[in-house]
Structures are given as structure tokens and as C-alpha cells.
């Protein structure tokens, strides 16, 4: 009896202490992460211009107007938004595969048991990931400057490098032009005539600009180290026996990689791709420091555009609306990725685990 009484007393203390312990965290996260989302939702359907409070009586409700200006109304807002979406799509399409493959390759090499001193190299590859994005952007500004290190290196091979940050030419345009398929100076009327969302097909097909490609290189360079660590953790889980067995079976290095190692890395691969997709839609710091969307809007991304629209053009409603569209894009990307991941990977462990659980209950 006494024992039970004491217990309930402790439980009561515990509940009070529990709330007390989580209160600061809940308060701060609620106040600065959850509540603001609600406020921004209101601003995204309002015509607030940054003067006074967005909740003052005079601020007009404009319904879906801000969203409409991004998708259906012909105008500069939609043009800029669609250009930013195009830029970011190409950015994702190049950066995600590049950083994933580079990270995987680095992890496979660093994981080789016959190589000594790999921990030094692991550290070296990971180091750029922990440095400040702003500081690194400054370094890359210098590397890719007109008289910078990259052009000096290219010059050593007899190549005269472009004026990286001033070059708005799309790589896909350059490729098509280089192959002689189209005349870049005078693109075919079929492509320039029209296209979805107020942007001509020709513009949609520009590819990442030369300027954007420097930012892609920077991001691939800074993120592959982290992703390499994720692959390394997964590689260390591959049982040695499995590798030895395949060695005895006479599999060569490529066959081992293709049929033994890679299938076991699948969960890590999907994790890296998901994180990559989430991260690449959020690129902001590098754009702010290196290009501010220039040249000719070819490094404009939705994240930077939302910031610029709100804080430079004082169209907070449109800026907030862009944020929510971006949010939606990232959520959809994540869900899509999870869905693909579930489809391919979960059936196997499930088949193994369900019967066991069923038999114990």
C-alpha cells in the first residue's frame, strides 16, 4: 500500500517535471517555428507591404491572388518565378546525381582495406562540409574569378576559361549549338513561339547557365563529404563474410560492386538522394553571396526569389506564397522519394519480420 502510494507521488512529480523540462523547447520551437508558419500563411493571402503589422485592420485579404500571380497571370512575377523554378530544376538534376556519385565513389575508395592512411583522406573530404557556407562562397568567387585559379589552370592547358559569373549562356543551349542542331543566336521559331507558364520552350530548355554551374560545383564539393560518411557507415555494415564468399566464387571487382555491395547500399543511397533533393531546393546562402540571381536571372532560385520579393520589393504576400510553393515542392520530393524507397526496400525486411512478430504475440 505504502509502496503504491509513494509510486503515484513520484509519477505526479514526474509529470510536472516532464512539462517543466520540455517547456522551454516547446515554447521556443512553437513561437519561432510553428506560429510563424501560421502567420506566413495569412500573409501569403494578404496584400501586406511591410508597413506596420500584417494583422492590422487595414491589411487587405486578397485570397489566392498572390498564388495566381505566380502561376496563371502573365507578368514579371510569374516570369521570374518560372525562371527560378527552371534554374532550380536544372540545378537539382545536375547536383543531386553528381554529389551522390562522387560521395559513393569516395566512400568506396576510402573503404578499401588494402589502402593505408584512409582516415586522413576521409577527414580531408569531409572538411569542406563543416566550414561556413559564406566563407566557402568567397573562396569560390576567387577560384572562378576572371583572373582566378580555375582560369589560370585552364590556361595552362591552353583553354581560355569563360567569365564564369557574368556568363548567362545555358549549357544545354551551348551543347545544342555545339552539335549544330540549332543556331543559338537565332533559335527556331517553334521553340520561341510559346511554352508552359509564360516561358518559351527555348527558355525552358536552356539548361543551367555557366554562372549556375559554378554554384553547382561549389555545392557538390561541400556536400559530398557528408554523404560519403553516410555511405561509409553503410559500407561498414556489409558483413566481411559476404565479400569473402563472393571472392571465393571468383567474382571480379566490378561484379562484387554491382551484385554484392551496391544492393546493400540501397537504403543509404535513397537516404542520400532524399537529403540531396531536400537540400538542393533550399540553396540560398551561395546565391546571396556569389550572384544575387545574376547574370540575367540565371542563378535565381525560388528560395532567393522569395527573400528578394519580400525584403527588396516589399511584396511580402508574394514572397510568402513562393515560400509555401517551395515548401510544397520539398514535401512532394520527400514523399515521392519515401514512396519509391518503400516500394523497393521495405517488402524484404517485412517478409522477414512480420511472421516472427506474429508468432510471438
Amino acid at each position, binding site marked *: 500500500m505504502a509502496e503504491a502510494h509513494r509510486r503515484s507521488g513520484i509519477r505526479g512529480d*514526474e509529470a510536472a517535471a*516532464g512539462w517543466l523540462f520540455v517547456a522551454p523547447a516547446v515554447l*521556443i520551437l512553437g513561437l*519561432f*517555428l510553428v506560429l510563424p508558419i501560421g502567420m506566413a500563411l495569412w*500573409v501569403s493571402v494578404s496584400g501586406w507591404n511591410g508597413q506596420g503589422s500584417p494583422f492590422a485592420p487595414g491589411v487587405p485579404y486578397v485570397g489566392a491572388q498572390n498564388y495566381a500571380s505566380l502561376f496563371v497571370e502573365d507578368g514579371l512575377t510569374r516570369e521570374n518565378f518560372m525562371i527560378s523554378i527552371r534554374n532550380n530544376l536544372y540545378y537539382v538534376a545536375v547536383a543531386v546525381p553528381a554529389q551522390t556519385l562522387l560521395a559513393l565513389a569516395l566512400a568506396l575508395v576510402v573503404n578499401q582495406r588494402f589502402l593505408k592512411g584512409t582516415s586522413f583522406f576521409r577527414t580531408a573530404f*569531409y572538411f569542406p562540409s563543416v566550414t561556413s*557556407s559564406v566563407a566557402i562562397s568567397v573562396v569560390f568567387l576567387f577560384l572562378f574569378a576572371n583572373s582566378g585559379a580555375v582560369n*589560370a589552370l585552364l590556361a595552362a592547358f591552353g583553354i581560355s576559361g569563360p567569365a564564369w559569373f557574368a556568363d548567362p549562356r545555358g549549357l544545354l543551349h551551348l551543347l545544342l549549338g555545339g552539335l549544330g542542331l540549332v543556331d543559338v543566336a537565332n533559335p527556331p521559331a517553334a521553340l520561341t513561339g510559346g511554352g508552359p507558364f509564360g516561358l518559351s520552350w527555348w527558355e525552358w530548355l536552356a539548361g543551367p547557365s555557366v554562372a549556375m554551374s559554378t554554384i553547382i560545383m561549389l555545392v557538390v564539393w561541400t556536400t559530398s563529404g557528408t554523404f560519403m560518411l553516410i555511405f561509409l557507415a553503410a559500407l561498414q555494415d556489409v558483413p566481411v563474410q559476404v565479400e569473402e564468399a563472393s571472392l571465393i566464387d571468383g567474382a571480379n571487382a566490378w561484379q562484387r560492386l554491382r551484385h554484392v555491395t551496391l544492393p546493400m547500399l540501397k537504403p543509404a543511397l535513397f537516404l542520400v538522394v532524399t537529403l540531396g533533393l531536400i537540400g538542393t531546393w533550399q540553396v540560398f546562402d551561395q546565391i546571396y553571396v556569389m550572384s544575387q540571381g545574376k547574370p540575367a536571372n540565371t542563378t535565381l532560385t525560388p528560395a532567393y526569389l522569395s527573400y528578394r520579393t519580400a525584403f527588396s520589393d516589399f511584396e511580402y504576400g508574394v514572397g510568402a506564397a513562393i515560400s509555401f510553393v517551395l515548401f510544397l515542392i520539398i514535401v512532394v520530393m520527400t514523399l515521392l522519394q519515401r514512396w519509391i524507397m518503400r516500394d523497393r526496400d521495405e517488402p524484404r525486411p517485412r517478409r522477414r519480420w512480420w511472421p516472427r512478430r506474429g508468432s510471438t504475440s
Partner: protein
Amino acid sequence: MTPPGRARGFRALLGTFLGYAVLVFFALVFLYPFVIQTANSFKTEADAAAHPLSPVPDPFTTAAFTKIFDSTAFPLWIGNSILVTLLITVGRVFLDSLAGYALARLSFRGRGAITAMIVAVMAVPGVVLLIPKFLVLNQLGIYNTYTALVLPLLVDAAGVFIMRQFFLSVPPSLEEAARMDGAGVFRTYWSIILPMARPALITLTILSFQASWNEFPHTVVAVQSPELFTLPRGIANLVSGSLGAGTQYPLKLGAALLATIPVAIIFVIFQRYFVRGAAEGASKE
């Protein structure tokens, strides 16, 4: 199928050689930019423009650093960065571990809901929150203050989650004994739990330090007065603002170098905690 001994020996040698070739090549790709950065910050502007690739300044000069300290607000930015980083790191280590402990160990009504909220908040992409954060800071009347720089970052959901996972992995016997001896919840937490949680706390300290020292987007929406700039914000302004109009690469590279050094030192000393942090950050997904 098996190649004769000598051929196999040759292939192993070739493999080793190729392996090192790849490692050294990428070590150069990942580290040489930092060498270039360091070397060029000790060059004259003309030398930096003429020989950007060279790791040797000729002539060697500290003019860029003198200029950084004399004609930019760099000392102020450092002061602000140290203050903000210190406050955020202490706040995160204390509040994250407190909440993480409660969510792992104490039973109270609403614990499940709060855990779910923490996980949901972690999934919200930071960049999407820029305008929303500004709105709430503005509404609370703390926009453009030190409070705005620090308070919203005092707790981070990922840190709470890391601590919760850690406490879940620790057997509860020790604290139960302490509680049976009549120690209160907070006392148990402070003198039994926290000392035990040292490795997790070090990881959290390092992650918080690195994150708050490097934090940039938050400062963009929290403050606008140059007196409140931290290092990343100050350097970003130096580069993209009016001061950045000329090239002045030694100056910019030097400023960026100085901002990188503290994290680099911490990284070299506490490497394994960074690696653990990366692994834990990944496992939360």
C-alpha cells in the same frame, strides 16, 4: 579462373597505385582551395591577380589583415559572433538535453504529441521559414536586436531528438536508484544523468558551435543594422555590398579565412564527434 601468382601481385599493386592516385587527386580537389585561400590572403592584390594558383605569396604581406582590422567592422563582427555563438551553444546544450531527457524518460501527458511535433519541426526546411521568422520577430517587436539573433536559435529540434535518442539508449537503473534514494527529478538529472551523457553532450556542443558560428540565413531576416552583424553576415556584405565592388581578393579571402579557423581547429580536435553527429543527423531521417 584465378590468375597466376605474379599477375595477381601485379594487379594488386596496380589497384593500390590507382587507389592512392584517386585519393591524392581528390585530397587536392578538396583541400587545395583552402591552400589557395590562405596563400592569396598573404599576397598583394597584383600578385593575387597574376598568380592565383601559386601557394607562395611573392612578396609576402600582411597588408590584407591590417586592412581587415583597421578599415572594416571585422572586430565588431567577431565580438558579435562570439557572443551569439556562446549563448546559443549554452542554451542548446542545456535546453535540448533537458527536453530530450524528459521525452525519453519522464512520463507525462502529451509526451507523444510533443515528440511528434519535434520530429515534424525537424522536417520543415529552414529556407521556407525565412519570411515567417521575420514576421514573428517583427510582430514581437524584437526585430533587429540581439534577442532576435539568439532567442529563436536557443533550441533546435534536431538536438532535442539526438538527446532523446541518447537517453533512450541508456539503461534506466542508475537514475531509478537515485530516485529511490529520494533525489528529486531535477537533481537526478543534474548530478546523475548529465555526467553520464558526456559523449552526447560533447557531440551536441560541437554541432551547436559549428551551426551557430556559421549561421547565415537567420541573421539575414533577424537583423539589419551593421552593429548587429555576425561574421558570416559581415563577410557576405563585404563581398556582395559596395565594399566588394573592387576585387580586393586578399582582403576578402583573409576575412573568410579568419572566420573558418575556429571551426577548423574544433574540427581537427573533435573529428570523431563531427562524424558521429553526421551519422546521427542522418539516422533521424
